């Protein structure tokens, strides 16, 4: 009797979790695989059939507008540049903020976390307004304060790409700062005191104490940050207004989104989603393994 009740209780707790998992993760995932092997599109929404790997070969061999390989390369550049600035700015600010002589820590911390707190939709649309050629405050500052020529931010592919990156750097550094700050606070203070007695320089302390000790926390944060940045649809979609000018600003995610929801190429979109997923999965596995391997050296 007691055993029966225990099992019923476990079932009661675990069953919803399983139903959810199957409903929102496993089923859509499997369905996505099936879609990627099919010819489903708006024209073939009822009478679709399995066509094998044709969608995948299409991705890699058929010329598309914009070109798949260009989009892929741009996404890599986008991710690397963003992560570089997120980590460098975030960790530097955390180091500055963590000095014991600094007053008003709580105030600075609150102000610096602000970009993370503002909804991404508003971030993207407001920056889009700020990049406006005539009335945007970026050009107004450039011309009125620095006497430069205004830049046509959203009109040409390269400038638009830079504009999207600037927006996302602004958005992303607080996350790294907050994580680094948490890690810095857990480093015991006597380590630094001991190093000072030994006459260690600022650089040596950073290299031999700070960086190794915040590493274990930063590595998962960087992995997560890479995945989020690679997959961030909001910023690129909204700042470039769905790929303007003329679909030249796409990253992988916005490229898929456009294929699926604006051109109704469901099979093709599903296959592209799979490609992105595999790229991220491989990256995460390799990155985590590599960094763990080097961690053992310390």
């Amino acid at each position, binding site marked *: 009797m007691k055993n029966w009740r225990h099992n019923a209780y476990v079932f009661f707790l675990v069953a919803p979790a399983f139903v959810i998992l199957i409903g929102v993760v496993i089923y*859509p995932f499997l369905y996505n695989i099936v879609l990627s092997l099919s010819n489903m599109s708006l024209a073939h929404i009822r009478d679709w059939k399995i066509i094998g790997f044709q969608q995948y070969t299409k991705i890699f061999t058929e010329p598309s507008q914009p070109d798949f390989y260009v989009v892929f390369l741009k996404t890599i550049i986008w991710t690397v540049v963003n992560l570089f600035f997120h980590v460098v700015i975030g960790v530097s*600010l955390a180091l500055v*903020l963590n000095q014991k002589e600094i007053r008003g820590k709580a105030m600075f911390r609150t102000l610096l976390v602000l970009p993370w707190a503002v909804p991404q939709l508003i971030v993207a649309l407001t920056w889009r307004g700020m990049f406006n050629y005539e009335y945007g405050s970026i050009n107004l500052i450039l011309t009125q304060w620095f006497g430069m020529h205004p830049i046509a931010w959203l009109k040409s592919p390269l400038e638009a790409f830079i504009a999207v990156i600037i927006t996302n750097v602004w958005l992303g550094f607080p996350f790294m700062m907050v994580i680094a700050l948490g890690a810095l606070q857990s480093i015991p203070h006597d380590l630094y005191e001991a190093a000072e007695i030994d006459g260690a320089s600022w650089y040596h302390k950073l290299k031999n104490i700070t960086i190794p000790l915040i590493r274990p926390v930063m590595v998962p944060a960087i992995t997560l940050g890479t995945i989020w940045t690679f997959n961030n649809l909001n910023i690129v979609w909204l700042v470039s207004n769905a790929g303007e000018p003329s679909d030249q600003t796409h990253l992988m995610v916005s490229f898929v*989104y456009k294929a*699926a929801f604006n051109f109704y190429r469901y099979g093709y979109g599903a296959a592209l989603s799979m490609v992105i997923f595999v790229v991220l999965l491989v990256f995460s596995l390799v990155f985590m393994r590599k960094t763990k391997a080097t961690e053992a050296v310390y």
Partner: protein
Amino acid sequence: MNNDKSKKIARISASYIVLIIFSLIALFPVVQVFTISLRPADRLLSTSLEIIPKDASLNTYKILFTERPFFLWLMNSTLIAVVVTLTGVALASTAGYGFSRFRFVGKKLGLLSLLVTQMFPATMLLLPMYIMLVKLHLINTYLGIIIMYSATALPFCIWQMKGYYDTIPMSLEEAGRIDGCNQFQTFYKIIFPLAAPALVITALFSFMSAWTEYVVAAQILQDTDLWTLPLGLKSFEANMGSEWGLYGAASVIVMIPVVLLFLSLSKWLVSGLTMGSVKG
């Protein structure tokens, strides 16, 4: 010694300069939104950089509520966000507990699949679920959007809750059992209150994502009467010439609750996030 002291002063002043510059950069776009919302209608597109514009007025806020369906969108968003939050908290708190405390078939695979969802591009779940909603005739309904939001937020919430339950010692439940609580009572009387910080984060996360989401809503809600705030915001932004002020005012109203919530809870958010990721 004197040299050391001046070096220190230089270091501290440099630090303050860095902090002030970055704080201003962080603050600037937020201030922009306020400035835009205060501009009088005839000077929406201005080339001045003043923070409080000349003849500032609150007129845009009035127009928002009297001449636009903004109040309706506010109600829609509130309803959807509240239902998504309640669903998220109820399901994630029990499912997370199950994953943390019991051994059962498929547990490892289940946890792994929750983690792997973080690597799904948005379209990976969106597209199959969208087609599913089309087939179930749930496009253009609240139920459709609520299912969509709960589904995309849940994996992260369950993982978060599971990570937090893991830090609560098992001995507490055993103690509760000895004091005569049954299993369900130990859960909701002892463990559930202890997990409050993680519950707050889960609630905040679900609420914020439902309150500010645009891309999914744009696919599912086509009828203006069903629109949520982000859809309204985007429609104002699209007419930058004439409705830029309304965009500013609407953004201020959408932004204030989430920014305040976020800032007041950011301490918990960080401990929850790092715990989840470090343990993961």
